[in-house]
């Protein structure tokens, strides 16, 4: 693995990008908070940069809720980007308006996840597939009918289906109809949003094969969003791994699957059952759930669950379970900080009555109760819990970060005040990038740490 630092905007300098079709730069898509008081946006996509090359299939994987669908929708302007650029052959499409947007929409289409919901049941198949042609006033009505029939043929249905209704078709067939509609305008780029996840396993392969054939025939470029990794491995040329609105690792599929660089990729891959029992890597179990994207952690997005999180040297040898407890404590304090307690609850708390929040002491017992915590650590921890108990959450957090925080939590190792985030490191000759401090030569490699800690 090469360990020199690559620029955060990959491919911009030096690296020749022979035929880049889509260039995404620092793209952010935030949803405004629905509440009246809480106006923190949900950071669904929080600054991602990558390229999609002409004719390739780029996979986008991650747990549900990681922002992959939002990213796909932003690329075809179903969602408005909050910030950043999406360059399609050099044109920034995030700022297209009116007729330009309407014209551009021909080029980029989407296949939706749920075939039950993506076809309007009150229209015949013909009308459904034709609608894009009607909208774009494509040739004459008779031509459109012809085209629809040939499209139906193309996706493995028969022209007689023109006058049938979606109800009359199975899930796989409905997905074919959706694909025919997607192809109607001859797009160059198609976002496939988990196109087979709602289908029976038996038909998944058929649809995947169809998509591959169509790609070849029409020179299509795919962004394939999925959470089924085996499908991704089969169809994608390159894969981007997404977590909490960030791309953690992006690179050629085989390489990424056989030799993951990023801790999150490790974790994700270790969740697939291994066909090869002799594979050396141990199974890493991820604890907890991804954080709320409205309140992403400072520093590395994965820091709350990372199995190889960088620890301060003096605590490197603390028990893993104690570390888990510390992480849990941090999360709980963060939660308490943002939970808005009603006045009633404040009053109840004042008088020592029960509230819906467990007291911090209870929490402490739960987390560390039966662990052997070294004395000096225990002292710090009780300081922290005391502060939190007095609703000085800010102070408690600061104390916790000062003692147990590392560069992964955004603590600047050089003593700066601004929280630091990881950078993209180029981790192989193919230009694979990974978003993790572990690639910095100051820290040990991921693989060794995994072996160490497990």
């Amino acid at each position, binding site marked *: 693995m090469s360990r020199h630092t690559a620029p955060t905007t990959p491919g911009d300098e030096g690296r020749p990008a022979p035929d880049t079709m889509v260039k995404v730069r620092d793209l952010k898509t935030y949803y405004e908070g629905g509440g009246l008081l809480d106006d923190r946006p949900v950071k669904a996509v929080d600054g991602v940069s990558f390229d999609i090359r002409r004719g390739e299939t780029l996979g986008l994987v991650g747990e549900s809720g990681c922002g992959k669908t939002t990213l796909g929708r932003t690329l*075809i302007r179903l969602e408005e980007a909050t910030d950043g650029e999406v360059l399609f052959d050099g044109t920034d499409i995030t700022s297209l308006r009116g007729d330009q947007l*309407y014209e551009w929409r021909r080029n980029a289409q989407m296949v939706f*996840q749920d075939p039950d919901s993506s076809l309007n049941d009150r229209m015949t198949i013909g*009308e459904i597939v034709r*609608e894009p042609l009607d*909208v774009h006033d494509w040739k004459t009505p008779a031509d459109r009918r012809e085209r629809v029939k040939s499209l139906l043929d193309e996706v493995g249905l028969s022209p007689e289906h023109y006058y049938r209704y979606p109800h009359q*078709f*199975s899930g796989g067939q409905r997905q074919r109809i*959706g694909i025919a509609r997607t192809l109607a*305008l001859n797009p160059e780029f198609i976002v496939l949003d988990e196109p087979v996840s709602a289908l029976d396993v038996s038909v998944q392969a058929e649809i995947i094969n169809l998509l591959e054939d169509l790609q070849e025939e029409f020179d299509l470029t795919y962004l394939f969003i999925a959470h089924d990794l085996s499908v991704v491995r089969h169809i994608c040329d390159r894969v981007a791994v997404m977590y909490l609105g960030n791309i953690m690792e992006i690179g050629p599929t085989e390489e990424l699957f056989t030799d993951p660089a990023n801790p999150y990729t490790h974790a994700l891959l270790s969740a697939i059952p291994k066909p090869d029992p002799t594979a050396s890597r141990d199974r890493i179990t991820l604890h907890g759930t991804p954080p709320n994207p409205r309140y992403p952690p400072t520093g590395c997005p994965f820091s709350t669950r990372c199995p190889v999180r960088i620890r301060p040297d003096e605590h490197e040898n603390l028990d893993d379970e104690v570390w888990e407890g510390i992480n849990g404590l941090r999360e709980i304090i963060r939660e308490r900080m943002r939970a808005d307690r009603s006045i009633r609850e404040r009053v109840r708390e004042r008088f020592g009555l029960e509230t819906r929040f467990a007291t911090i002491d209870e929490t402490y017992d739960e987390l560390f109760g039966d662990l052997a915590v070294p004395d000096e650590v225990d002292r710090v921890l009780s300081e922290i819990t005391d502060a939190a108990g007095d609703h000085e959450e800010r102070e408690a957090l600061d104390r916790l970060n000062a003692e147990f925080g590392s560069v992964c939590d955004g603590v600047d190792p050089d003593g700066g005040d601004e929280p630091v985030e990881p950078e993209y490191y180029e981790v192989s000759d193919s230009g694979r990038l990974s978003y993790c401090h572990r690639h910095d030569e100051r820290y040990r490699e991921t693989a060794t740490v995994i072996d160490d800690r497990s």
Partner: protein
Amino acid sequence: MSTTQSDSTDGLEEPDDDKLFRDRVRENPRPAMAWLAGLAFLLLLEIGRVFAGVGQAFGIVGFTVELLASVPTSVGDNVAGTLGSAAGFVATAVTAVLMAFAVTVPVAGSVPDGAVDVLGLDLSRRGRRWAKRAELTFVLVAAAGLVAYTPVGGAFSALIGAITGGVDALAASLPSITSRDLIPNTGHRLPEGGWEGTFLGLSPATAWAIRTGLVFAYATTALVWLWRGFDVYRTHYRLADWTPRDDTVRRFRNNYWGLFGFAIVFLFVVMALWAPAVSPVEAQHNIYEPNSHEFQYLSEDGEVTSTTHVFANLQSRSDGQNTIGPMSYDDYDRWAPLGTTNRGQDMMTHLSYGARTSLVIGLTAIGLGALIAVVLSLLSSYYKGVTDIVTVMASDTIQAVPALLLIMLVSVVFQEANHPIAQPLDGGLLLALIFAFAYWPGMWRSIRGPSLQVSEQEWVDAAKSYGQTPLQTMRKHMAPYIAGYILIYGSLLIGAVIISTAALTFLGLGINPPTPEWGRLIDGGQSYVATDSWHVATIPGIAIVLVVIAFNALGDAIRDAIDPEADVDESEAAATGGGA
């Protein structure tokens, strides 16, 4: 009513398959011809009434247009009163332009693009849409101005007058199978026995029964003809061999409770439409102008004498002491199939014309309210955000005022001011408008969930992804799904409107005499329920209960019919349809 839903979906298929449909008919014209011949035959039988109906439709359209046309000037006058005449003129013009523009938005889509090209402008797609609307607005305003401010207007109204006059003359001279002229049932006994002036010399009761029977036979035939039309289209001309609507129809046909509701509603509507035919005496004579209409009867001393309705009515009251019950003649040889009212007028006539009143009010109120509700629910669920919040606030504000109180308040204000809108139906139209205003928030609320749900469907996203316009997306991809729901709530609410109208009239607030109304009948008869004249309040009471139940049953049945989940063999349909 049930055509609304199919209309909205049928409309989608037409623009392009239009030619195909015509071709298909040309290839196989016989079924279509037979069906059209049926239509011609039916129309011919009732040709007089058809023209009368056309005349009435003209009247309604004329009234609406006049009312709308008076809006800009009245706005202008109000402004002129405070800001001077120049401002008044501007206000008139602005109001007129805005109203014209509002008309063009839904219409512009179906006008060919050619008109816009005249200007030779290079416009964007959006620009073209707006240009088209602007041009249409211009044309409309120009035409309206021409009619309002130039001699053309005079010629125009003369033309309209001539057409209306012609239609009315036709209506009067052409025969109808159910007309009073063909089957008269008003006559008098002869001293030597038998009847004079009735159909074939039969008794008035028999003649009336024949005529009423004919009316229902005719209406039933018309219904069968409609059903045949659907069937013919389905078997001979439709390209799809199955549509979701087939299932809806099938489910409805197997729902006996719904069919019962439909039957009652059908009776009610037929009674309202053919009110002149099913009433034994003419409403004009018996109810509206009893002073000026005389008729003959065989008096007790065996002579044929003549008297006015007003006098005869006085003697025929059902007021506890005196009773003309159902299925009897009064002392003046007048047949009263449902007896008389407490004021001596004919109950059947009241009931049928009252059905007309209720139906007009119900349909106007629900139609208008549903329109507002659907448009707002489409807009608020498509755009969400601010549009949604504004709609929520507007509807909450209206709902915060108790509906009945609001209705009473507004109706009293307008009636006291003798506003022109309070004239038609003696306050009926006013009531309908107020109901529409008071009930749209409820309807909007009840379809809000479904419309939000449908706006979240991926096919709406898909439409957006290939650049479909918001208006078309709402019309094609959202409205058809809401149509079913609004039908359900509409038919449930129509019962509420009918009963509220009756209740208000019962309280003396809703519809003023002489327009017949069921609530007033109940009011008039309530004190005699325990006497011989029990029928005065009981008959309209039962009628109202039946109609309201029927509309509810219909609404329930529609709900079950459009809900595919209610169907067990849906999977079967999918299995037979797929296969390939």
